[in-house]
């Protein structure tokens, strides 16, 4: 019987959000096709992750638990996934679109000569194949893609799918040996500088974002405060990043991050087409801008024409009151 493989990524023994979403999407597709969901769990000390994969609905778990997998290196991870695919011949391999997930997808597709569809925002089954829909051309167009004859490798965009729910299921994982020995790996991880604080933009459910209208680095303070009250992340336009007011990792847009939060509050952002490319799939968009003609208002669901420095403190207070 063929399976839908799900590459399950974990961090500190926990399945990352985009992999839970991928397990959720895989379950729906597999049920429609009458196939199993098989989770692929790689890492070092990942027995708990395998158990969690069963809990989140995997029918089977295949994995490799080894010291060479302690730090993510595609050179170590890729060949194991390729081998599991070659030994088990799944119909599809679904992977959450994280930095590591994208590397694995590209590696396995190249080595197995499989078709690869990236950044899917919805999946459907048609004639026993998976149809993946994704935005293309800076999110100005949509594309429905299918892979007619080979293994179907698909990466799933962050926050586009509902996460799997815990089922209470348990099972026995099947573990294999690593494919490449440490001595044969040509990359060594020699250091790691953890990012201090702050929530990942692509995983955030709420983003408060600032543009040139904040006026300077200190103008991000009310943005940060509102984000903190809402337990959200801080975004930025390129203009503010280029000006050096905030680091690049906060940039949203065509040459920054693509985000789809439930709520995106754009403050002092004009809404250039390149900025829109990164945030137009947000569920609800709020724009705060002094200029009633700013293009961001044509995209927003709710608009406020005012000075952001007047509105943000009032908003922070109003939310604080409601959220207690």
């Amino acid at each position, binding site marked *: 019987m063929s399976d839908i493989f799900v590459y399950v990524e974990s961090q500190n023994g926990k399945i990352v959000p985009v992999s839970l979403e991928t397990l959720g999407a895989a379950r729906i597709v597999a049920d429609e096709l009458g196939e199993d969901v098989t989770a692929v769990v790689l890492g070092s000390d990942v027995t708990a992750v395998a158990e969690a994969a069963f809990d989140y609905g995997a029918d089977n778990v295949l994995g490799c638990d080894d010291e060479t997998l302690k730090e993510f290196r595609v*050179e170590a991870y890729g060949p194991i996934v390729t081998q599991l695919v070659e030994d088990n011949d799944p119909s599809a391999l679904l992977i959450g679109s*994280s*930095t590591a997930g*994208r*590397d694995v*997808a*590209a590696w396995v*597709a*190249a*080595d197995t*000569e*499989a*078709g*690869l569809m*990236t*950044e899917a925002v919805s999946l459907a089954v048609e004639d026993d194949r998976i149809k993946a829909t994704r935005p*293309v*051309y*800076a999110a*100005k*167009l*949509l*594309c429905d*893609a*299918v892979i007619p004859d*080979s293994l179907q490798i698909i990466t799933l965009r962050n926050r586009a799918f509902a996460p799997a729910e815990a089922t209470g299921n348990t099972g026995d994982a099947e573990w294999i040996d690593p494919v490449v020995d440490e001595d044969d790996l*040509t*990359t*060594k*991880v*020699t250091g*790691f*500088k953890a*990012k201090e604080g702050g929530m990942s933009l692509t995983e955030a459910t*709420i983003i408060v974002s600032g543009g040139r209208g904040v006026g300077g680095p200190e103008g991000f303070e009310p943005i940060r405060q509102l984000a903190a009250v809402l337990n959200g992340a801080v975004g930025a336009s390129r203009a503010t990043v280029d000006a050096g007011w905030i680091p*690049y990792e906060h*940039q949203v847009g065509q*040459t*920054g991050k*693509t985000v789809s939060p*439930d*709520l995106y509050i754009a403050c002092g952002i004009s809404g250039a087409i*390149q900025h829109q*490319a990164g945030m137009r799939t947000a569920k*609800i968009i*709020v724009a705060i801008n002094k200029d009633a003609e700013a293009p961001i208002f044509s*995209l927003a*669901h*709710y*608009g*406020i*024409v*005012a000075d952001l420095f*007047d509105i943000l403190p*009032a*908003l922070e*207070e*109003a939310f604080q009151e*409601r*959220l207690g």
Partner: protein
Amino acid sequence: MKVVVCVKQTPSTTATFKVDGGVVSWDDSGSGKPNVVNPWDEYAIEEGILLKEKHGASDVFALNVGNDDSIDVLRTALAMGCTEAIHVNDPALAGADTLGTAKVLAAAIEKIGDVSIVVTGKQAIDGDTGMTPVQLARKLGWTPLTNVAAITEISGDSITVERLLESGRQVVTAVLPVVIGTVKEINDPRYPSFMGIRKANRATVPTWTASDLGINGVASKVDWSSVYAIPAREGSVEMITGDDAQEIAEALVDKLFEEKVI
């Protein structure tokens, strides 16, 4: 040490798109330049040139797989400071998926010969896939290093880079040859100089075809013929007004609770 920079041509970031029977076309009435150097590849070009200026690379080749028009991106790369350019242009190679493109790029890099480092952009803004660097590395049998935010050291046959991950910066040492996928943090691309532009316009750029590379064609494994405009959003913006900031803020908070996004 030879370096190759992969440069794609993409629609400009302000282009407007039309789809007719699944065929996509575009135009940019504002700037009059419908096609540009893929914005992410400007960082790759700059890094290639820096490898020459800072790390003693001998040659920096700009490599493009494209059509008659895409030779422009190679002229830009030459004007910025690449020392050579190769244009792979053959209708037999049109419509490739990322794996097909990776194979063509790999064949061209092997034909250039004796290359130590290939630099690519993060992704192409038309497809936004970002799969090429790893697939190219696999086809060459080299080590891929994606999301590279800094090249800190090259000594002998080893290279040390910093990779930008969700959780922080990973420092990695690898053995050359490598394929490097860059991110925007890595540098500030220079503008082409006036002299550079003049030189680039006079340069002869060799064109290689599929048969020069020993490739018969590149059948895509993905069928993405169904392309269509994003359905327009229903309804328009609802303006929130009020007598003062507090009233406006409270009205918005009410709305957002109703929308269940808080």
